[in-house]
């Protein structure tokens, strides 16, 4: 970074600090390269200074509206403790996804060990044993995911 540039950065920061501290800045103190920037800081400071606090009436209205929203979102009936309610949604979704993959894997292993894999895709009634097992496993996994989401949203 150019040395002059650094000086200008420091000067503008100093002008800003002084304006915020309520001091007046004499135009002669500001280097020509910073004149426009200093004027803008002054305008922005002026604008920020006219900012005010919300009225008591508005605050009351807003608090009431937010309490309604809070109840609508079902927070009031939410369990105040417990692992599920403290977990962020993305983490829960990841856990649920891992659970589904793990269950499907386990079912495959069991089916393989019991020698049923060869029946996969073979004509074995409308659904083969392994296929039924997989579907049942996935249904259980989906049930668990559903339950987690239900508890989470309650």
């Amino acid at each position, binding site marked *: *970074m150019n040395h002059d*540039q*650094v000086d*200008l*950065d*420091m000067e*503008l*920061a100093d002008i*800003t*600090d002084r304006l*915020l501290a309520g001091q007046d800045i004499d135009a002669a103190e500001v280097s020509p390269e910073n004149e*426009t*920037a200093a*004027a*803008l*800081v002054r*305008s*922005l*400071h002026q*604008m*920020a200074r*006219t*900012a*005010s*606090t*919300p009225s008591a009436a*508005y*605050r009351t209205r*807003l*608090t009431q*509206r*937010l*309490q309604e*929203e*809070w109840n609508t*979102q079902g*927070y*009031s*009936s*939410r*369990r*105040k*403790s417990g692992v599920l*309610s*403290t977990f*962020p*949604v*993305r983490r829960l979704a990841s856990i649920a996804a891992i659970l589904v993959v793990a269950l499907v894997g386990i079912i495959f292993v069991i089916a393989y060990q019991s020698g049923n894999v060869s029946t996969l895709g073979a004509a074995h009634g409308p659904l083969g044993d392994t296929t039924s097992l997989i579907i049942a496993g996935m249904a259980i996994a989906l049930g668990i995911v559903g339950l987690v989401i239900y508890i989470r949203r309650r």
Partner: protein
Amino acid sequence: MRVDDDVQLAILAQQGDREAFLTLYNRYLNKVYNRVKSRIPVSDVEDVVQEIFIATIRSLQSFEHRSQFNTWLYTIVNRQIADYYRKRQRTINDDLTVTLDDIENSVASSQNTRENMDEQMALKRALSSIPEHYQQIILLRLVDQLPFAEIAAQRGQSIEAVKSLFRRAIVAIHEKIGDKV
């Protein structure tokens, strides 16, 4: 420390503790209000602030405790302000309405006041149209009045880098606004 405190309150709020949420709301209402007021016409500030806190409740579960609570909250503030300008662009004949809105809000609308309001509107628009990191640095210093050192600590940057960013942000506003102010 206050920031940790915010995160603890946010966690409690996520667990359904309404008082924790209200504490955060009371803590940030003035800051959010002033941030919004410095960026949109006065007549719409209250509606937008309400939308921001409603959005905060609705997305409370997405706060993941990794970031500071105020960083997360100000992201919502920025999103709502951007939405506000997007909707406004779609539905309203911009400049004329902005001026009328502000005039309606001004009881004593002298020529001076009007010029002042035009200037402020131009500034608000420019501030809302520069890149977000520029907006943040200006708002942190001039609206929240955080010292440069504290901003540097919060952003994990050197104080020199923050001061340089501040000046670049001001120059960016000047580029948007020209010589209107």
